[in-house]
């Protein structure tokens, strides 16, 4: 329909296009190779990289850019307000308290990829902490930890089954879980309001242990960089051998260079304080494993497919109910692991563990980091970026002696809202640019 007025504008004779006209144009079109060179083929080299970046921004594929800008803004503002925000002490503190909610946020990323939400993750964390705390008093520590984490897996499986098999909306199931498991947590704790972490428990080490040797932080940094560089190089070589578009070496070096600055500065910062925190190592390990699962395995591909179109996924032979159930199991498991970190940071199991704004922090972290609320788009790394933003704000406010929940809640709420607005707007832009 839209071509008719255009055709009459251009052609002096206002006749509609006939099929002969179209046929006359086709021989020229037939010469075009399988990949249309006008579109989306990157120039090799640095210029191509910049062009592609600009094109992505224009069409709304902004990814993690807002959160990176956000982190810089937060750093600059608090540095200006306090005069000593960008310090190794703050780096250490932020990392220490980021690990627990960050791990829980990784689980939320999985659920968000399906376009669903898990409101129970805070309560699951609290209950797992309580289960561990109660069991650890008369059981080997490792067994208590295992059972605590398994309790989270079990609760996640329950949410997933009720959602996938019975068809109750996920937010209702997990809302019920949010209340129910918080109640169960109090019941499990019994008369005790807190159970201190037993001496020598691994849970205590989660946020207290540091690899004090200077070589640890630098060694890990170098290891990460080498692995990153070699993986990219290998991928690029394979693609080149298969005659597919590949990243030029200059771009790989640039990416590795940017990453190198970040991790080496971080490693230096940690070494100025107590060393490399164990919590960070575990958090990074979970991020690496989950990223691998999502991007490199059939399972991950199926999670994205279910998030992008349930009907298409079902017809491709994907067991949608299993994907849904298993994703909630992952969310429950990571929620429980996060709960043990929270217990470690507060000094033991607690009736109010995982309550308060903990749940909102996790969901906000995932969304702020760039994972879409609408399903099908996101990365586990958004959990890391998002929780860094939120924890930096908390740390900055603490430094300004604005520790009251009032200010912190308002700012966290505002940041979450901004993140969702950016998500919605970028989705709209992608639609109008024909990319969503």
């Amino acid at each position, binding site marked *: 329909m839209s071509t008719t007025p255009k055709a009459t504008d251009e052609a002096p004779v206002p006749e509609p296009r006939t099929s002969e006209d179209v046929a006359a144009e086709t021989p020229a079109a037939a010469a075009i190779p399988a990949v249309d060179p006008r579109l989306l083929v990157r120039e090799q080299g640095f210029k191509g990289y910049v062009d592609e970046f600009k094109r992505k921004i224009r069409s709304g594929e902004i990814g993690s850019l807002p959160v990176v800008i956000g982190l810089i803004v937060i750093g600059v503002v608090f540095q200006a307000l306090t005069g000593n925000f960008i310090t190794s002490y703050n780096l250490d503190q932020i990392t220490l308290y980021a690990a627990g909610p960050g791990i829980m946020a990784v689980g939320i990323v999985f659920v968000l990829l399906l376009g669903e939400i898990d409101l129970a993750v805070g309560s699951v964390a609290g209950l797992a902490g309580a289960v561990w705390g109660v069991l650890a008093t008369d059981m080997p520590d490792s067994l208590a930890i295992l059972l605590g984490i398994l309790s989270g897996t079990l609760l996640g499986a329950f949410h997933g089954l009720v959602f996938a098999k019975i068809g109750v909306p996920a937010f209702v199931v997990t809302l019920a879980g949010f209340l129910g498991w918080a109640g169960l947590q109090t019941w499990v704790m019994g008369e005790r309001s807190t159970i201190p972490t037993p001496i020598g428990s691994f849970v205590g080490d989660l946020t207290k242990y540091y690899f004090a040797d200077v070589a640890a932080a630098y060694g890990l940094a170098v290891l990460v960089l080498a692995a990153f560089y070699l993986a990219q190089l290998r991928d690029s070589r394979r693609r080149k051998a298969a005659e597919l578009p590949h990243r030029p070496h200059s771009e790989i070096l640039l990416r590795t260079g940017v990453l190198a600055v970040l991790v080496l500065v971080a490693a230096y910062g940690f070494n100025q304080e107590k060393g490399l925190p164990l919590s960070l190592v575990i958090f990074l390990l979970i991020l690496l494993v989950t990223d691998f699962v999502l991007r490199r395995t059939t399972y991950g591909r199926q999670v994205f497919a279910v998030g992008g179109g349930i009907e298409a996924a079902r017809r491709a032979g*994907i067991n949608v109910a299993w994907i849904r159930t298993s994703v909630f199991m992952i969310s429950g498991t990571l929620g429980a692991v996060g709960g043990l970190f929270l217990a470690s940071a507060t000094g033991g199991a607690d009736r109010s563990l995982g309550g308060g704004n903990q749940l909102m922090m996790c969901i906000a972290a995932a969304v702020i980091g760039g994972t879409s609320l609408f399903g099908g788009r996101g990365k586990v790394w958004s959990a890391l970026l998002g929780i860094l933003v939120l924890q930096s704000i908390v740390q900055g406010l603490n430094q300004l002696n604005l520790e009251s929940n009032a200010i912190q809640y308002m700012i966290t709420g505002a940041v979450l809202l901004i993140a969702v607005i950016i998500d919605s707007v970028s989705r709209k832009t992608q639609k109008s640019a024909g990319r969503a």
Partner: protein
Amino acid sequence: MSQTPVLALRGIFKRFGAVQVLSGVDLEVHAGEVVALVGDNGAGKSTLVKTIAGVHPIDEGVIEWEGRPVEISRPQDSQNLGVATVYQDLALCDNLDVVANLFLGRELKKGGVLDEVAMEKRAKDLLSTLSIRIPSVRIPVAALSGGQRQVVAIARALVGDPKIVILDEPTAALGVEQTAQVLDLVERLREQGLGVILISHNMADVKAVADTVAVLRLGRNNGTFPVATTTHEEIIAAITGATDNAVTRRQARTAEVAQ
């Protein structure tokens, strides 16, 4: 065409609640044959196709695959036999790129890990042998036009090396040039020795590419015609029920004799 049909349906019945959608439908598809399945709205074309695809298991009847009876109760059963279905709504995941969509459900792996390079290479080869032009195999399907999505959906059906391809209204939403592309593609499928079931409302398309036309009317067979020797009017008559032709008369006569 004397050899055993790749796929044969014999006396298929399917009921949804109070509606008897299919009553004793027969259909045969041979290798290298394009069978057009035509009929008015509600004739049961889509339901018949969905029984083959395993979306709706049949109530009664026999499905034969290369001469032996098989049971198709899930989409996987149908896929494992070698039936690929391209639905009218295409069923592509908008958020995944072309390569991921082509290989969805049968990803190529290397040591348990997705082999993106091999998949991208095969995707490019497949698309170029089918002369399919799309801007890039690494953009989300959401960014493609209607015709491009249609050819991607058909290409997707071919990834699993099927023996039968079912196309549900592949040209319904396409322009002139894109329709021509899809019809070319159907002919290429026949040349490769695949059996094709083509659902279409467009008689011009049917006459252009089909070898056989099977007409459904109100959930029953209403004649099977070789395209070369059948006129447009005869097919339309069979579709609308204004039938008084050799095939229906003969069927009525054999039915009488049987009784």
